[in-house]
């Protein structure tokens, strides 16, 4: 049941709170191509959450426009607009008095889907987010762990098969190990579903890991740079961006590529460390440093050596 992803356009979108000095979001213009993940990142006070909530009109625009597939959000019926957009928040906000099934089925039920359709959809979604449809369907949110609850939150947002997802620090309150796993699973899901996603975080590493594009917002809700992670890391437009991405941005840039992206040579690899092709270059470099080696052997999925990569190949 694929729904076409939507293109999202911020067009001079502006939010000024009455009685407060300066704008929260200041003439923000950017285009999120259909099916891509756009991460809004920046220091607190950068207006990233405000920008996100402008899209589903939880916060009304003061000026400018936001368009989904060419239609202004202001031309949509408010309730229909929100039902057509998936929304995930940090604290999840599951309804504690409803079962997991009822939580996930909320929007489909509002849209008039029948019970059988909802049951099937819930089972499908629970499986998709890595929960057990038989065991977890009838449980209540209080019986789940934080990570499980966020999975349910994601399933609930996907229930009506939205073409656009808004995610407000969804993994922010989860411990680092589970967070990394949820991030990986989210990327796997996105690879399958190809939704247009706007994702808010204050964590630049999360932004680099998840974003097809990253929008860095600075204080006062002004856009500092909107680019691919690669270009943000390699060509920050100013000191603010360079500062924000950190002094280790060259290392971070290494984490965007994997050993599989390189062309290994057929030199002898006896006694060298062996690493799988999906290892990113940053981790590979760390291994070389730790083991005082100048080269390593890249290993394919079948366990066969693909060849040898030298330290300078990583840094090229």
């Amino acid at each position, binding site marked *: 049941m694929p729904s076409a992803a939507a293109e999202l356009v911020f067009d001079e979108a502006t939010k000024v709170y009455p009685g407060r000095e300066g704008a929260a979001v200041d003439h923000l213009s950017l285009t999120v191509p259909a099916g891509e993940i756009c991460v809004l990142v920046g220091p607190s006070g950068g207006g990233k959450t405000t920008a996100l909530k402008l899209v589903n009109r939880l916060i009304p625009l003061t000026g400018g426009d936001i368009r989904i597939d060419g239609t202004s959000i202001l031309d949509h019926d408010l309730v229909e607009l929100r039902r057509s957009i998936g929304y995930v928040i940090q604290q999840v906000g599951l309804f504690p008095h409803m079962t997991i099934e009822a939580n996930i089925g909320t929007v489909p039920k509002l849209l008039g889907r029948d019970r059988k359709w909802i049951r099937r959809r819930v089972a499908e979604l629970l499986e998709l987010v890595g929960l057990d449809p038989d065991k977890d369907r009838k449980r209540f949110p*209080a019986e789940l762990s934080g990570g499980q609850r966020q999975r349910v939150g994601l399933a609930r947002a996907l229930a009506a098969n939205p073409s656009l997802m808004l995610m407000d620090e969804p993994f922010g309150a989860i411990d680092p190990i589970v967070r990394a796993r949820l991030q990986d699973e989210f990327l796997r899901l996105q690879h399958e579903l190809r939704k247009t996603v706007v994702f808010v975080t204050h964590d630049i590493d999360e932004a680099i890991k998840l974003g097809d594009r990253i929008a860095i917002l600075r204080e006062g809700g002004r856009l500092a740079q909107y680019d691919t992670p690669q270009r943000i890391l390699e060509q920050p437009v100013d000191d603010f961006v360079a500062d924000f991405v950190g002094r280790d941005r060259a290392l971070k840039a290494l984490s965007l590529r994997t050993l599989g992206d390189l062309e290994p040579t057929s030199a002898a690899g006896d006694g060298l460390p062996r690493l799988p092709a999906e290892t990113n270059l940053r981790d590979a470099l760390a291994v070389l440093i730790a083991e005082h080696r100048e080269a390593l052997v890249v290993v394919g999925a079948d366990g066969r050596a693909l060849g040898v990569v030298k330290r300078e190949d990583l840094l090229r």
Partner: protein
Amino acid sequence: MVASTFVEAFRFMPNHFSLLLEKAGETAELAFTALAIALVIALPLGLWLGHKHRGLLLALGISSVGRSLPSVALIGLGIGILGVGFWNNTVALVVLAIPPVLTNTYFAVEGVDPDAVEAARGMGLTETQILTRVELPLGLPLLLAGLRIAAVFVIATATIAGIFGGGGLGDIMARQVTYGLGGVFAAALWVAGLALLTAAALGVAQRAASRRMTPRT
């Protein structure tokens, strides 16, 4: 003296069982009518103010005024307007019942997890749906607690209707000459029983409403 009254009271009960039943029915009718009217007034107001997160002072103001008005004085005043009887007593009891219902309803809705409400709004529930499907069920335990307090107040106070021609168990209590001290005591025990039964029933409902929201261990 006390012991003999006690014995007398328990002798009174089987001998005047149908009378007690009839009077208890009157008290219950009076009390539940007052509670119903109080609910009709205070529930929508409390729900609306709580949903809007405003009117805290209004809710508390109405409540403290309501609580500080003595029911006896109110009935005395009401005789001039409504005359002696059922409705005059009912009005006084409604005034008594509104404060706990209003404040508890307000805080029940106002205190619902803001993340659940925000998620609901973001998902496209209308304001009415947020109230009926999220805030009301989640606030129900606290709301029922308010109703329970109001019910106990009202049933206990409904006895003063006996003095003001409203009938009920208070009628027996006001006529010691006819029914004796044992009769008064018996009626008082029945009032207490009625209040406790109602409180217990609402307590069961309250626990049922909050059962799902706490983790099962």
